[in-house]
């Protein structure tokens, strides 16, 4: 069993072309996708570095709060302009990414005023985020205002209270709440570290390329059947099931080796953090390796020709990778596809890795790892039942 597994590992290690494809391709894709789409997974906010120009003619309390307290953060730099024309020129000269023109008396008449947001056509995402931040601020100020009105009304009805000073105090508190951070969209939930684009695509590409081992493992069985080495093994004293387990382990070891090298490469070259717990990363990696290797045995038992496995593998892996969130985050899918993705092992692996990256407990990892292990072992068992050595 071990001899077969180690022989398979050695054969795949010797296949330099395959090795380069399986190792360099995911690294390259991680670099491309992580860099290109990384902004969507900002570590501290949801947007890339942006210069926002704001034109206003009157500085009241609300305008000042939004321009100087709410809007600026690590990624957003605010530049003030006296009028819309200056702002337009700056936008054309690309001195700013997004321009916001606040109308007269905006601070007093937020709900009735129309704010103009201009942008460079290439930076619509930043513009829509700035617009969201503005809308969010307006909504909260209106809530504060409505709350203050109710408070003043109730206090007045009670009598014996200095309504003006009490309302002023409440307004100050609520204003602080309205102006507090929270306007930026964060990728992480409470208590978790945030996820960068590079981290997401490192996990996504790692998961996708490990999935290719399902077809490589199945192909190895079909090749051995074709060249009769499998039949020759069957003529030795080793029984068929350990032979299949040996083939399964060969795929598992190669998957783990590939994953380990990929993990080290992404850590060294792209500074990707795979989380605080190496044990958890390993647990998800091994469980996913078992799932992929089991799938390989299953495929080998139902497909007869090497050409078929190449075709099925090429298309199948890409479809599974797409549905599993390796190309686009699953959250962007319609509900039906999100439901379908629950039946796909690479989805659980990606979820597992992302959980580990953002900080999770062992208890939370029980579900994805158990599902992956169960899937892999079930496939191995079913494959072994059906698979013929010659």
């Amino acid at each position, binding site marked *: 069993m071990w001899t077969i597994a180690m*022989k398979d590992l050695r054969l795949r290690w010797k*296949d330099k072309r395959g090795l380069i494809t399986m190792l360099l391709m995911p690294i390259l894709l991680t670099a491309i996708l992580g860099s290109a789409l990384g902004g969507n997974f900002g570590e501290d906010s949801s947007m890339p570095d942006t210069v926002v120009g704001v034109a206003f003619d009157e500085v009241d309390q609300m305008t000042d709060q939004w321009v100087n307290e709410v809007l600026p953060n690590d990624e957003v730099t605010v530049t003030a302009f006296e009028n819309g024309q200056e702002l337009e020129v700056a936008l054309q000269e690309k001195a700013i990414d997004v321009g916001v023109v606040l109308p007269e008396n905006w601070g007093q008449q937020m709900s009735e005023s129309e704010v103009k947001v201009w942008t460079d056509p290439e930076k619509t995402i930043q513009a829509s985020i700035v617009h969201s931040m503005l809308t969010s601020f307006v909504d909260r100020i209106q809530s504060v205002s409505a709350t203050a009105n109710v408070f003043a009304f109730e206090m007045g009805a009670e009598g014996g209270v200095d309504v003006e000073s009490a309302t002023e105090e409440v307004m100050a508190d609520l204003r602080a709440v309205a102006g507090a951070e929270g306007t930026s969209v964060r990728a992480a939930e409470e208590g978790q570290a945030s996820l960068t684009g590079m981290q997401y695509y490192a996990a996504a590409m790692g998961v996708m390329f490990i999935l290719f081992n399902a077809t490589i493992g199945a192909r190895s069985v079909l090749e051995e059947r074709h060249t*009769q*080495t499998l039949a*020759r093994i069957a003529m030795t004293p080793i029984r068929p099931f350990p032979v299949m387990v040996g083939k399964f382990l060969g795929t598992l070891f190669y998957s783990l080796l590939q994953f380990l090298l990929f993990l080290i490469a992404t850590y060294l070259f792209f500074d990707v953090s795979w989380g605080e717990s190496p044990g958890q990363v390993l647990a998800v990696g091994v469980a996913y390796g078992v799932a992929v290797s089991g799938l390989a045995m299953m495929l080998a038992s139902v497909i007869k020709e090497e050409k078929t496995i190449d075709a099925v593998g090429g298309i199948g892996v890409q479809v599974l990778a797409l549905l599993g969130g390796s190309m686009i985050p699953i959250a962007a899918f319609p509900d039906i596809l999100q439901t379908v993705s629950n039946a796909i092992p690479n989805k659980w692996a990606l979820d597992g890795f992302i959980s580990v990256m953002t900080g999770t407990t062992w208890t939370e990892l029980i579900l994805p790892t158990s599902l992956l292990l169960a899937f892999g072992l079930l496939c191995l068992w079913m494959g072994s039942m059906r698979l013929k050595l010659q």
Partner: protein
Amino acid sequence: MLQVSELKKRYGQKEVVKNVSFKLKEGEAFGLLGPNGAGKSTTIAMICGLVSYDGGQISWHDKPMTSSMKKKVGIVPQEIALYPTMSAKENLLFWGRMYGLKRKEAKKRADDVLDIVGLKDRGKETIETFSGGMKRRINIGAALMHEPELLIMDEPTVGIDPQSRNHILETVKQLNRQGMTMIYTSHYMEEVEFLCDRVGIMDHGEVIASGTQKDLCQRLIGGTVIRLKLEGANESGMQAIQQLASVNQIASDPESNTYEVFVKRPDEAISDIMDTTVEYRMKLSEISVQEPNLESLFLQLTGRSLRD
């Protein structure tokens, strides 16, 4: 040592092995001779445990063959069942380990086996760089790694050059001289004649004759074959030849106008045949006399050539 009794195998409606029986003594070389599709490889596959059998029995030292006994058997399959991207030595090590050899033991034995098959200096080279003959030699070497008591070879010389073939045959002969028992299947009569003490001739899934080469040749009805090439052969003329007192049987190949005539007394028969061809106006363009051999026996038994 090995006894095969009434072995049967059926694929669907087709019975591919029909009541095949033979015995093998220690140190003996037994040849299974027959044309392609005769059932030799299926019989071998059943002995090796690769294919289940529908009837009969295989015994090893008077006990039913079990998978643990496979350790005592070395098998050389018809195909070159090796890993092309691994070196010759790595292949031998792998197959040695599959038969339960320890790592150190396997390493030492691999060097010995490379020496036996004449490739001691090529052990580090990958199989894919070898010629067909060299691959065949490693294919045999892989079966020798665990020093089996019985070596089963299924057409081990298919598709190789004469030089490699001779080397393989000499190696196998040497192994047999050293006491290794073997079963050798082939459709090359001369290989079986060279290597084997006893021969079983198979056709259409049956052993149609079995015994030592001498016994089998004596069984020829009329020990000698006269090969005729006739132009303008006619039915009445051929019937006349068949009815000659010195002639026992005729096998014909109408496409090449060739006729194999089995005779008891060649001198007398040649004279009679020539007179008959003249009488029936058939033009005799070629005549030759063949000593009795396994090929002629097969021809007599089946009416076909071994390589048909």
